[in-house]
């Protein structure tokens, strides 16, 4: 456990160094006479606990703790002071401990024990997340999978919040914007509270998977920071871009990429703020499948073409191009029964839902294919 001491009294550096040195797992990596030099060190080095004096010339220990909470939220603060009037403030700052000078070894021992327990749980979580492949499935639902199994969402809103931060991953989204988009249906005072609770639920749900720290917060808002997670929707989109030209050389890959799209973004969850993104991805998928089906037909892979086109047809029975491709596939397979059934189905749906007749070109194509 790496610790530093911040105190304007040089004698305290000596005392703390000597006392902390008695704990074999504690490593005093630096002693600083003021907070700016400590912050400079913290910027470049890993430190787990800071033992901080409160009354110092320049920035006080309290001001330092406030500032460092934003910069290094994972650093634990232990105040070491001759004043007892700041203890309540220390609780508000979530300081780990508050010790009175002169420091006694037994009390310091309790404090080190407290820090040690926290340090070990964080180490374990960090070690786990290092060897912990994270897979996020956002197509057809919302699942996060780690070596420990699936993340169990504590509340519906916390899952929604995860989905929201996932779309904005790597960027800070302001609290105001989150509230407007995700909690817009409730009065502002409740929304603020609900957001806090949902963040808390979310971290709670991620914690057993060693992922609590991926939800980062600052005074502005929240950010989802994923180091190397595999996100199905990102992979899918990457594949579609890469497979802009489909031919016999990459047909296998294209078929595999098609199967990644197991459903629309977030599936049945139907988040209102995600509608544009759902539409965009759905259009991307549709175009991709049509391109793929054309190639499959050229390559005389009718069965594969029929399988993928039927998925499109089930999504939208009104789409003329899907029907055209599927008719051609059935005709190539000389499956007259399916050819007729499909055309009749399309005609019925057009009449029922739109009260229109099929396009002339499609009618002509159908007649031609039927005659073959």
């Amino acid at each position, binding site marked *: 456990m790496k610790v530093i001491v911040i105190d304007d009294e040089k004698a305290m550096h000596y005392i703390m160094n000597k006392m902390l040195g008695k704990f074999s797992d504690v490593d005093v990596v630096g002693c600083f006479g003021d907070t700016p030099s400590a912050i400079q060190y913290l910027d470049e080095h890993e430190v787990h606990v800071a033992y901080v004096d409160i009354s110092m010339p320049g920035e006080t220990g309290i001001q330092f703790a406030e500032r460092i909470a934003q910069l290094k939220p994972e650093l634990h603060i232990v105040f070491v002071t001759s004043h007892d009037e700041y203890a*309540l403030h220390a609780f508000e700052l979530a300081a780990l401990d508050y010790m009175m000078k002169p420091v006694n070894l037994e009390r310091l021992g309790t404090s080190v024990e407290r820090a040690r327990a*926290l340090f070990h749980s964080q180490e374990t979580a960090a070690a786990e997340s290092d060897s912990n492949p994270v897979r996020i499935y956002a197509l057809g639902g919302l699942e996060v999978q780690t070596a420990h199994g699936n993340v169990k969402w504590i509340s519906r809103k916390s899952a929604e919040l995860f989905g929201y931060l996932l779309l904005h991953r790597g960027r800070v989204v302001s609290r105001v914007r989150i509230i407007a988009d995700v909690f817009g249906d409730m009065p502002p005072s409740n929304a603020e509270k609900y957001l806090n609770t949902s963040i*808390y639920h979310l971290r*709670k749900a991620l914690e057993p998977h060693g992922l609590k720290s991926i939800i980062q917060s600052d005074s502005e808002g929240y950010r989802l920071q994923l180091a190397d997670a595999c996100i199905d929707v990102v992979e899918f989109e990457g594949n579609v871009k890469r497979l802009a030209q489909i031919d016999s050389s990459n047909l296998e890959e294209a078929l595999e990429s098609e199967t990644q799209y197991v459903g629309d973004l977030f599936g049945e969850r139907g988040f209102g703020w995600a509608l544009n993104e759902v539409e965009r991805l759905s259009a991307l998928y549709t175009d991709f499948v049509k391109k793929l089906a054309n190639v499959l037909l050229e390559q005389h892979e009718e069965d594969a073409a029929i399988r993928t086109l039927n998925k499109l047809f089930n999504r939208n029975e009104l789409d003329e191009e899907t029907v055209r491709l599927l008719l051609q596939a059935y005709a190539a397979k000389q499956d007259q029964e399916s050819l007729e059934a499909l055309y009749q189905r399309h005609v019925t749906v057009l009449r029922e839902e739109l009260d229109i007749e099929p396009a002339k070109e499609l009618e002509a194509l159908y007649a031609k294919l039927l005659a073959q």
Partner: protein
Amino acid sequence: MLKLLLLEDQSADQEAVERIIRSLPDVQWLGAYANPQEALAEADRNRPDIVIAAIELADMNGLAFTSKLQAIHPSVRVIVAAHSGDYAREAYDAGARGYLIKPIDPNSLMKVLGTVSTLKECSNMNKLE
């Protein structure tokens, strides 16, 4: 689920905390105890994750209760509650992780619950969940 137990001998304060806690979906209410001995016995039986302990009690000082509870169950996180901030330094000595000023309002209670559950060493808690 976080299991929460309350030590409080004022019925109005008991009710206030219970109302807030019961409105939180992921906190399980283990009950309110006016007597520190009974609260300790309940902690032995049901292993709370969080205990809220009033400091100003008729029977025993809530700080003494906190030290005792921490000695028996070091992983329980204790939030103390008092009418003033006067006991804050002693609360740190007793091992408290959070401090509430009465009357307890929902916002400060939720804030302190958030803090103590981030500040945690309870790998045993993960297993419970």
